[in-house]
């Protein structure tokens, strides 16, 4: 193909306009100037191409050369992605650090996957087999946890003419497929895929299984499905990042792609340093063995921030295609939207609300719609799921702003973080009054079969009690707590117990940080057992203040920190103590009268 070479006319921050580009394609990657900065064509006007440059453009001037590579912005997919940390356009940050030191210099060209590393490929198919797109040719054990499936690339079905097990570098040919049109396709361990195009699948399915997070307010009240979408809006300091980190740590998925998009450098470092130390409760291996990190911190060039979201979700789709359950966690989509706004402003487009471009909603929808539970390509009918969770950072915590509103129209779960809860150190600060999950109904069958028959009614009771508490609080604010009937007082006590003993969860505690579903259920049972017994005692004449002050409540309060392995016996002790103390309260009340 003929190389297209143009000359720069205009430079304005990350936007460069070059002339002589008539033969280039839209969304081609170009190299800009002497330093060969990476850019992408985003508009064509006759001979002139507008290019967004993914690196700092200082020092670029008129007349500098622009060369088109003729390819769209793509990612390399293959073994070696996991445990790695990449920037927004998939450059390996660890390798770059080894090469150029601790600051990011410009124009670095470094392949995403290590070219020298040798992988052992175990062939599954044999010569002469007919293979369809998506069929698994063989395996590479990428980490101790993830078995990397080497698949026939989309649209490349045919007959295998060469395949063998052995040790290969990522660029070595592991198999050859004779296509139907007679050509031969060489399959290496690497596939390239353009980031702005969703990877194909056979069929999309409605999600039906919860993604278990071990976070009580999420699993019990506002669950997310495997293959579902969720957003976490909240003002700064409300604990968005902690929630996101907890999800990345404890979700029962096979792989997590964590995208730090325009956020703090130290947060990425935290993940990078902490995850290798943590063990996945399900596999017993390090959490890093199932994590891919994409880091475009807020001081890195703004255009690459726009690309980072796509880079991340494309990698996630690739593992989904292997039949894994994958979660993409993006922190924060607001920074991504701001990158869109900045480019839009430089392109002198007509702004929509608050200066955001008019296509903000459709771009956001395009991102979240790449999530879902699917039947993957390939003859074995395997299913994969991709859940997408995005943090949103609304300005001033005001969720009426365009990014939050556009997101809410798309996602099915809303975990609204609340600064007033955060001030009270109620963490996670998920506001139970305005958050919602549209998956509750859909997941009810699974929960009834796998947790307990009454799981849905118990969690529903939680929500109802909390709602009643908020109504009663209005009255208390007006006339004081003494004006309430003993029954209403008991509702307040039950709600307090739900809030403090169940919903509050200390992320940094070894035990409290993750609660398995059966223990969540037992905790709820315990809390409601207190309420039920207390109400009965109330009917038998016991004093409401005495019931509220029972010493056993402190034990209930500490129940969540009892180690998950042997909680059952301890919970039974608490239950017995509870029964005894309530009986005593009834007895004492009867004696007084």
């Amino acid at each position, binding site marked *: 193909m003929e190389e297209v070479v143009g000359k720069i006319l205009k430079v304005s921050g990350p936007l460069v306009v070059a002339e002589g580009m008539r033969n280039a394609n839209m969304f081609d990657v170009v190299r800009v100037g002497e330093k060969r900065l990476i850019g992408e064509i985003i508009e064509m006007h006759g001979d002139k191409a507008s290019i967004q440059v993914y690196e700092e453009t200082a020092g670029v001037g008129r007349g500098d050369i622009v060369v088109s590579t003729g390819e769209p912005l793509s990612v390399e997919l293959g073994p070696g992605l996991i445990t790695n940390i990449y920037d927004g356009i998939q450059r390996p940050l660890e390798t770059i650090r080894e090469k150029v030191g601790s600051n990011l210099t410009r124009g670095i060209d470094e392949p995403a996957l290590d070219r020298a590393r040798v992988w052992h490929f175990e062939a599954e198919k044999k010569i002469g087999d007919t293979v369809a797109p998506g069929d698994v040719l063989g395996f590479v054990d990428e980490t101790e946890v993830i078995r990397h499936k080497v698949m026939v690339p989309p649209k490349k079905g045919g007959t295998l003419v060469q395949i063998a097990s052995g040790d290969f570098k990522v660029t070595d040919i592991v198999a050859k497929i004779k296509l139907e049109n007679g050509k031969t396709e060489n399959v290496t361990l690497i596939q390239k895929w353009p980031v702005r195009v969703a990877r194909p699948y056979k069929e999309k399915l409605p999600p039906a299984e919860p993604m278990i997070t071990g976070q009580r307010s999420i699993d019990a009240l506002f669950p997310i499905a495997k293959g579902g979408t969720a957003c976490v809006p909240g003002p700064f300091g409300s604990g968005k990042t902690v929630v996101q980190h907890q999800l990345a740590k404890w979700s029962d998925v096979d792989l997590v792609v964590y995208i730090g998009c325009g956020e703090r450098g130290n947060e990425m470092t935290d993940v990078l340093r902490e995850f290798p130390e943590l063990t996945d409760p399900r596999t017993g291996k390090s959490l890093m063995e199932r994590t891919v990190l994409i880091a475009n911190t807020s001081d890195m060039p703004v255009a690459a921030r726009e690309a980072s979201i796509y880079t991340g979700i494309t990698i996630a789709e690739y593992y989904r295609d292997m039949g894994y359950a994958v979660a993409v966690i993006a922190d924060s989509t607001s920074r991504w939207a701001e990158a869109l706004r900045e480019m839009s402003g430089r392109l002198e487009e007509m702004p929509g609300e608050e200066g955001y471009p008019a296509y903000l909603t459709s771009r956001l929808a395009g991102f979240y719609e790449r999530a879902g539970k699917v039947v993957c390509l390939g003859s074995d009918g395997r299913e994969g799921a991709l859940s997408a969770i995005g943090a949103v950072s609304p300005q*001033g915590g005001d969720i009426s702003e365009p990014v939050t509103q556009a997101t809410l129209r798309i996602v099915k779960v809303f975990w609204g973080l609340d600064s007033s809860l955060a001030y009270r150190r109620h963490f996670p600060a998920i506001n139970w009054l305005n958050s919602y999950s549209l998956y509750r109904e859909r997941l009810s069958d699974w929960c009834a079969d796998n947790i307990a028959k009454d799981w849905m009614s118990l969690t529903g009771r939680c929500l109802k009690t909390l709602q009643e508490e908020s109504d009663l609080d209005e009255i208390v604010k007006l006339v004081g707590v003494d004006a309430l009937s003993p029954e209403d007082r008991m509702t307040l006590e039950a709600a307090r117990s739900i809030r403090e003993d169940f919903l509050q969860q200390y992320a940094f505690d070894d035990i409290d940080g993750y609660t398995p579903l059966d223990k969540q259920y037992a905790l709820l049972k315990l809390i409601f057992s207190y309420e039920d017994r207390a109400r009965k005692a109330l009917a038998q004449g016991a004093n409401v203040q005495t019931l509220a002050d029972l010493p056993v409540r402190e034990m209930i309060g500490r129940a969540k920190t009892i180690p998950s392995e042997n909680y059952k016996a301890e919970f039974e002790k608490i239950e017995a103590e509870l029964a005894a103390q309530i009986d005593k309260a009834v007895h004492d009340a009867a004696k007084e009268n």
Partner: protein
Amino acid sequence: MIREYRTIEEVAGPLMLVKQVDGVKYDELGEIELPSGEVRRCRVLEVNGRDVLVQLFESSAGLNLAQSKVRFSGHGVELPVSKNMLGRVFNGMGEPIDGGAKLIPEKNLDINGTPINPAARYYPSEFIQTGVSTIDGLNTLVRGQKLPIFSGSGLPHANLAAQIARQAKVRDGDSKFAVVFAAIGITFEEADFFISDFKKTGAIDRTVLFINLASDAAIERISTPRMALTAAEYLAFECDMHVLVILTDITNYAEALREVSAARKEVPGRRGYPGYLYTDLATMYERAGRKMGSEGSITMIPILSMPEDDKTHPIPDLTGYITEGQIILSREMYRKGYMPPVDVLPSLSRLKDKGIGEGKTREDHAGTMNQLFSSYARGREAKELMVVLGEAALTPVDRLYAKFADAFEAEYINQGFYENRTIEETLDLGWKLLAILPKSEMKRIKPELIEKYWVGEK
């Protein structure tokens, strides 16, 4: 070869358009020579064909279109740096103004810096004792953190910042410590307060000052914090010093940025601030930290005054999204006479969890911190209720909480600007105050720690 151009076409506000230029690069530094021979500096904002839009760093007064000459330097804006900067005073453009000798630079550094590779950062986790209970005990500062002070007009943020600069120390003793102070559009009096405080304590010898006063050109403010940070980076990452950077006042910086943006007729974001304010602030704040290959660190305390004490104003709001927490000052505490008037509940240090606990401060730190926070929050709620309904409407426990909240404000928060408390003193004070409450309310502290440290009724 450096060419001179006499083709200035337009000057409007801080912007200037030069025509018919060749070979000029984006973000290049330029010099304008006035007919009087005076030289002013400028920077390329946009290259469009042979037209170049430049931003002046100083006022445009006296500029003459026909006779002024423009030269472009071939490089970006740079700061000459050297270890001898310590103890010196510079203006907002990095030129010495203390009457001392000219600096002999060891090197010239681009003031924009380069982003730190997140894979090359160390996570900040070394406890810094500031001697202020509300910070050490509740919003712990660690080395390499960026922790802003959100203040308002008339609040004593300067005293708090000076107190931190004076008292801050790391527990394991002596390491090379320096302060870089950037005054961004503040008044002479405020700048003088800092300088005389540094002089009084002798800290001036290990301080680098960059001063842009309210009377200096507003547009110069855009480069002042970057000058300061470049000096800080040099001291921290090349001379292995632990640098505390104080930037005051970020609000003035953002306003200068808005001025340039408005002059360029850019589509404004909220309240007229440019849409890229977040990115712009981030490129400054993110320069704090610790990184591999260097012993030093940059800890940053930006100070900003919130217009109308409004935390949702774009400047504090976007700052809060980038920095690792915030210390908020409260007008209510100030009126009560409690100094430093820290508003405890909305203040936060995000990095505290890694900097506290056994081996760093004390084993009971995390538990007591959470207990103090939630107890104070509940006490405040009880007090609000008490205002509406009277004390009788409270439950006995809530009455104790209200009492606790009062004592907490009067003793824990109100320590004054000259009391330097060790972390042990702060933690013990916390236990003393918690003893106002029943022991059964200590739900956030591990039982074995309660047994060990409880000073109230058994």
